[in-house]
C-alpha cells in the first residue's frame, strides 16, 4: 500500500539562545499547538506521534519521549522516537510520513526539538571520552578542513562564505520565528568577524538555539478536507554512509548525491535548478551552501560557488532562492533544525511563509544532514496532488 501524504499543519516556536520562559514540555507544546491550529485540528484528531531530537545528553533526559507522551497528547497512541544525529529533524518527518504512506494512519503529529540551554551544546556534542582521540578544536574544527578541501578543489574565492552568511541573515530578518535578527548585517561585518577555525569566521557559523518544530501530516482524505492548501509529498528519501572510510569524499558525499537522485526520481525532476522553485537546505557553516549546491545537483561539481556568487540563491532576485527562512545560520536547535527545513518547504508550497514567501512556489526541497556529513534526509513537496 502506498498512500499519498501531505503536510496539513506547520508550527514552530519562537527560537532563542535560551527559552527560559518554558519547560521542555512547554516548548514542544508551543510548536505542536501551532501545527494543530494551522491544521484546524486538536489532540484527539491525531492518530500517532513521531518525535525526534539529537543526543539525550543535551537535556539530560533519557529517552525523553517517555516524559513527553502526555504533553503531546500521545496517551493511548503509537509514539516513536527517532535519532539520526543532525539529520534527525528530517528523518523524523520521513518516518512520520511513512506512517501515512503505508496506509497505517490518517493524521500523524511529528515534532522535533532541542533545548540546548539546559546544558551546553559544545559539551553535549563532544563529551570527551576515554580512548577517543582528543578533541582538538571543537565542532568547527571538524568541518573547517573539509571546507578548505572544497575551496582547494573548486578554486572558490574567499568571499563566497561571507556572501552566504550575509544573504541568510537578510532572509532571517523576514522570519519572525528566527533566532538571529541581525538588522545591521553586511559584508564587512562578516569579513571582519573573528576567524574561529580558518577558513571559518565567527559570523559564518550557526548559533546555538532552543526551539521546536512540528507538523501534522495527513493522508489524501485529510489533505483534501484541509482548509489551507496542503503541501503534497512528491518524493522522500534517506541515505547513510559510514563516518570515515578509505577514499571517502567528505566534500561531496555519495550518500547526499544518491539521496538527491532518489528524491528527484520520485518527484519526476531531472533539472532541480529549473524544476524546483525554492530549497531549504541544512547549511550550518556558510560554505556548505556552495558545497550542497553541487551535491544536490543545482550546479556542476566545482561550480556551486559561482551560483552563490551570481546571487541566484537570494530571495532578492535570485532564480533559485535557498534558505528563505534564514536557515540554520539564523536558527539552530540541533534536533529541530532538520525539521525546520522540511517545514519551511511546506510553508512555501502552501503560500504560508509570510514575509519570506517566494511567489508562486509549486515545488520545494527540504534537506537535512548530520553526523560527519553521512546521514541525509530529503523531501520534495508540491502544491499539486502527485
Amino acid at each position: 500500500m502506498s498512500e499519498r501524504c501531505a503536510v496539513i499543519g506547520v508550527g514552530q516556536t519562537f527560537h532563542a539562545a535560551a527559552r527560559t520562559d518554558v519547560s521542555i514540555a512547554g516548548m514542544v507544546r508551543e510548536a505542536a499547538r501551532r501545527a494543530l491550529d494551522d491544521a484546524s485540528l486538536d489532540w484527539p484528531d491525531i492518530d500517532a506521534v513521531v518525535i525526534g531530537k539529537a543526543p539525550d545528553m543535551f537535556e539530560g533526559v533519557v529517552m525523553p519521549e517517555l516524559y513527553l507522551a502526555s504533553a503531546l497528547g500521545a496517551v493511548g497512541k503509537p509514539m516513536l522516537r527517532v535519532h539520526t544525529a543532525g539529520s534527525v529533524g528530517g528523518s523524523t518527518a520521513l518516518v512520520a510520513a511513512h506512517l501515512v504512506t503505508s496506509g497505517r494512519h490518517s493524521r500523524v503529529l511529528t515534532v522535533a526539538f532541542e533545548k540546548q540551554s539546559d546544558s551546553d551544546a559544545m559539551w553535549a556534542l563532544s563529551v570527551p571520552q576515554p580512548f577517543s582521540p582528543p578533541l582538538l578544536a571543537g565542532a568547527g574544527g571538524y568541518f573547517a578542513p573539509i571546507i578548505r578541501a572544497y575551496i582547494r578543489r573548486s578554486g572558490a574565492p574567499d568571499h563566497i562564505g561571507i556572501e552566504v552568511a550575509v544573504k541568510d541573515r537578510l532572509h532571517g530578518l523576514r522570519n519572525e520565528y528566527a533566532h538571529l535578527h541581525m538588522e545591521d548585517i553586511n559584508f564587512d561585518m562578516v569579513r571582519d568577524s573573528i576567524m574561529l577555525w580558518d577558513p571559518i569566521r565567527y559570523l559564518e557559523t550557526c548559533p546555538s538555539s532552543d526551539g521546536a518544530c512540528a507538523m501534522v501530516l495527513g493522508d489524501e482524505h485529510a489533505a483534501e478536507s484541509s482548509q489551507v492548501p496542503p503541501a503534497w509529498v512528491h518524493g522522500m528519501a534517506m541515505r547513510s554512509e559510514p563516518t570515515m572510510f578509505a577514499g571517502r569524499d567528505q566534500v561531496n558525499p555519495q550518500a547526499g548525491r544518491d539521496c538527491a537522485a532518489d528524491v528527484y526520481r520520485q518527484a519526476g525532476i531531472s533539472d532541480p535548478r529549473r524544476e524546483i522553485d525554492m530549497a531549504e537546505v541544512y547549511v550550518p557553516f556558510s560554505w556548505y551552501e556552495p558545497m550542497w549546491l553541487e551535491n544536490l545537483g543545482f550546479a556542476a561539481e566545482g561550480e556551486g560557488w559561482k551560483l552563490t556568487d551570481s546571487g541566484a540563491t537570494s530571495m532578492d532576485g535570485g532564480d533559485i532562492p535557498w534558505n528563505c527562512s534564514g536557515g540554520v545560520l539564523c536558527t539552530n536547535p540541533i534536533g529541530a533544525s532538520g525539521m525546520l527545513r522540511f517545514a519551511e518547504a511546506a510553508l512555501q508550497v502552501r503560500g504560508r511563509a509570510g514575509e519570506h514567501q517566494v511567489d508562486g512556489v509549486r515545488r520545494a526541497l527540504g534537506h537535512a544532514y548530520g553526523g560527519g556529513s553521512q546521514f541525509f534526509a530529503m523531501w520534495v513537496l508540491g502544491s499539486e496532488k502527485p
Partner: protein
Amino acid sequence: MATTSRATGSAQAATAQAYQATYLAAAQDALRLASRRDRFRPVAVVSFAQSRTVEREDHLNEVEMLMPVVAEALGAAGITKKELGFVCSGSSDYLVGAPFSFVMALDAVGAWPPMRESHVEMDGAFALYEAWTMLQDEDMDTALVYSFGRSSPGDIRRVLAMQLDPYVEAPMWPDHVAIAALQARALVDSGKLSEKEMAEIALRSWHDAMSSPTAQVAREAGLEELLAEDYLVSPLRPHAVAPVGDGAAAVVLAAGEKALELAEHPAWITGIDHRIEPSSLGARDLTVSGSTRLAGIGAGVVSPGADDLGVTGGAAVEIPEVDLAELHAPFAHQEPLIAEALGLDASVRLNPSGGALSANPLMVAGLARIGEAARRVMDGSARVAVAHATSGPCLQQNLVCLLAAEAEAGGAVSGRGA
C-alpha cells in the same frame, strides 16, 4: 479491560474515568487497524541472530559485538548487505555514556554503497516497526533491523532514573527497581499476584533458559531459596528483577515473494501495533497494562472484551489461536500483567526462551522477543506466536507483534504470489 482503579477516593476515580475515555478512543482506532490488516503488504521475519547476553562485554566494542550477529542474520537469510532495501537500528546513548553511539555501530553493516538507513533511540522492536512501515513501500523488499545494548559500563539504576520526569521525579534518583516495586505492590495489594508466584515465574524462566544458548541466567533453583532472599526494594527480590547484561540482536525482514525466496518457512507478521501510557506514574493504574491491551487489539491478538465498553468494530477481527508468547517482562510481576492484557490463557506457552528474567540486554530484549517468537514459527514448533516489547517505567510503552506460519491473518496457507 479493568481500567477502573482501586477506589481511594472519588478524585482518583475521575482520573480513571478520563483515562477510560482516552483508552476507548484509542481502542476504536486499534480495532480499525486490526480490521484492515489484510490490506497491508505481507512482511515476514526470515532470520534472527542474537549474541549471548553477558554480564559485562568489555572485550569488544559495539561494532565488534554486532558484526558477527549481523553476519549471522544475513547469512541465514542468504542475502548480502548490498541487497538490503532498508536498515534500521535501536539503541540508547546513555547506556554507554556517549552521544552518537549508534553512528559507529553502523560500521558493523558496512554501509557502502550508501544505504537507506535510520535509527530510533528505543528498543530494536520499535526499529522493526519502522522497518515494517518502510516495507509497505513497494520499492524495497528487505530490511535489516539490529540493536545493541551495553548496560555494564554504567550504573543502570542511575541511568534509568533519568527516564522519569526531569523536574519532579528524576531529581530524587528513583531507580527502576524502586519504580517497578510500586507496581508489584499494587498488584499484590489487588490480590492478582503473590510474592510466591513471582518466584515461580523466575524459576520457570531460568529453567527454560537452560535450553537457550544465549541466555545470561539459566539454572535450577528452589522456591524456598528464592523466597529467603532479601528484598532489593520490597516486594521485589533479586530473582524478580531481570539481570543486567550486554548483548546484540539482528532480524532480517522480507516482504511478499521475497520472504518465500529467503526462508523456507517465514514468520509472517500478521499484525503489529504499539501504544503508550501517560508520562506521570501517579496518573496511571499500575495494576493493568492498558497500552499492551491496545497494542494487542491493534495487532489482532485480542478482541475488545466486555470491559472495553463502547468499542465497536468495523469489520470483525478474527483472533487466531496462539501457541506461544514471548513477553518482554523485565520484572517477574509484569509477565502475568502482560499476559492478562493480551488475553493469553493457561494454554499459551509463555517465554519458552527464558524471557527477560534470563537475559535482558536493554534496547535488545524487545527485538529478541520478536526474534525468539519468529524462530519458533520458522522451525515449525509454533503456528502462531505473539511477541511483546516494552519501554519505559512500569511498562509505559508496549509493542505487540503477531507472527504466523501463514501470511493471511487467520487464513489459509499461502505465501502470497508463491
